[in-house]
């Protein structure tokens, strides 16, 4: 039988012969390859950008200037509802366009 690490299939016999079948997997934590590189503003960026997805979403992007990263922040805030103050947004754009800049 094929049984892969991390899955459990439990079969519980219930009274009326209806079987409850539970399939469960466990996902690993965020992989270190997606960690943001050090630099001024890294902490605030981490705080603001790790809530909805891992930061590999950031490190895999093409390098870009402030205009590129401003557009990303605008989308995260306006479209997805990220709550980031103007001041933090400025610091984050500064960080991204320096450390992941052109």
């Amino acid at each position: 039988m094929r049984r892969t690490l991390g899955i459990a299939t439990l079969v519980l016999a219930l009274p009326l012969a209806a079987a409850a079948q539970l399939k469960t997997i466990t996902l690993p934590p965020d992989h270190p390859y997606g960690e943001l590189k050090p630099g001024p503003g890294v902490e605030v960026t981490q705080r603001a950008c790790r809530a909805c997805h891992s930061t590999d979403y950031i490190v895999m992007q093409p390098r870009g200037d402030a205009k590129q990263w401003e557009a990303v922040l605008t989308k995260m805030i306006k479209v997805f509802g990220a709550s980031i103050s103007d001041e933090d947004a400025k610091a984050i754009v500064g960080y991204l366009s320096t450390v992941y800049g052109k």
Partner: protein
Amino acid sequence: MRSPRREFLRTVGGLGAIVVSAGLLARSPRALAQQADPILAGRPLVRYPEKTDLILLTSRPPQLETPMTYFDRAITPNDAFFVRYHTFPVPTSVDVGSWRLRVTGLVDRPLELSLADLKAKFSKAAVTAVAQCSGNSRGRFAPRVLGGEWGDGAMGNAEWVGVRLRDLLAAAGVRQGAVQATFEGLDKPAFPSVPHFVKSLDIRRVMDDPDVIVAYQMNGRELPMLNGFPARLVVPGWYSTYWVKNLSEIAVIDHVFEKFWMKPAYRIPDTPCGCVEPGTAPKNTVPISRMTVRSFIGTPANGARVVPGRPVTLKGIAFDGGYGVREVEVSDDSGVTWRRAQLGPDLGRYAFREWSAAWTPASAGDYTLMVRALNAIGESQGYEPLWNPAGYLRNVVERVTVHAG
């Protein structure tokens, strides 16, 4: 500067789950091909539940890419099949005893179906079809575009078994005035402001097409959780953005659904090629739908070594948006001359078509091997990539470089 090779070894070495020694891995064709690739170099190989070693795109939500070495054959194994989710968290636990597929909205008889109901009350339908992410190969776009920076492995082909969507809708009784059906799965974003992943299809499109199915089986087994357990939508010929995973609800509606994941997301320019001048924005857009013609060389891998004078079998796959592949050609001189490859068994017009061609490198040196396919309605692939701002529909002629010597 750190070489891509060292970077690769470092990232792979950091992964406790992998038992193969890094040295061995680095010499395998798969690892060589990954290191030679500007988009994939440095991305770790990871092993997720029910999955073999795949290339990590993102951890949260989990997104995993299939290494190119799997594309020398028609069927992509379940454990090697790519994974794409939009929001986090993703479903990690499903109780089949209590899971229900609901069919609601503009219907005479709303349904709540268990997996056993799907299997017992509806006739079984099977289709072999390619699932490909709309953004497959986005990382190759020039100028680059933002999004999931996939290499070419966000695709796979499987035999799907389940029930026809039109049988489900007929059982529920679609009412007069129905325009579309929406599809949603068990994945619900933790942040309420993040749009829930919901897709829609025209009612007419699904009632006319017996190959659109709700699949509960993939290559003869239950679906892996990360590929949509216990059931997913299969829309053969169309990009897999419509193939909603961990399906839980189908709703019939009287209008065209235009929430985030249908508009503005997953749109292509409303031009015959679905493309615009690189770096420009389209005037009008339409929802992405049918896949373009593509073909790939699965073996030899990019960067592989071959021996002058010794025959090699080139192998790969070709597919399109459902007309079927008519012809595959290969070139070993950067596209100056082409010759026909041999096609493998026909698994249906929505499936990967395997191809092979015998080839002998005449002398030492680098060879650029290319492949292109032609489909049943005369569509093919171009030498120049087409461009659009979302990084969709890529279908340029693919190439791998091998070293003879």
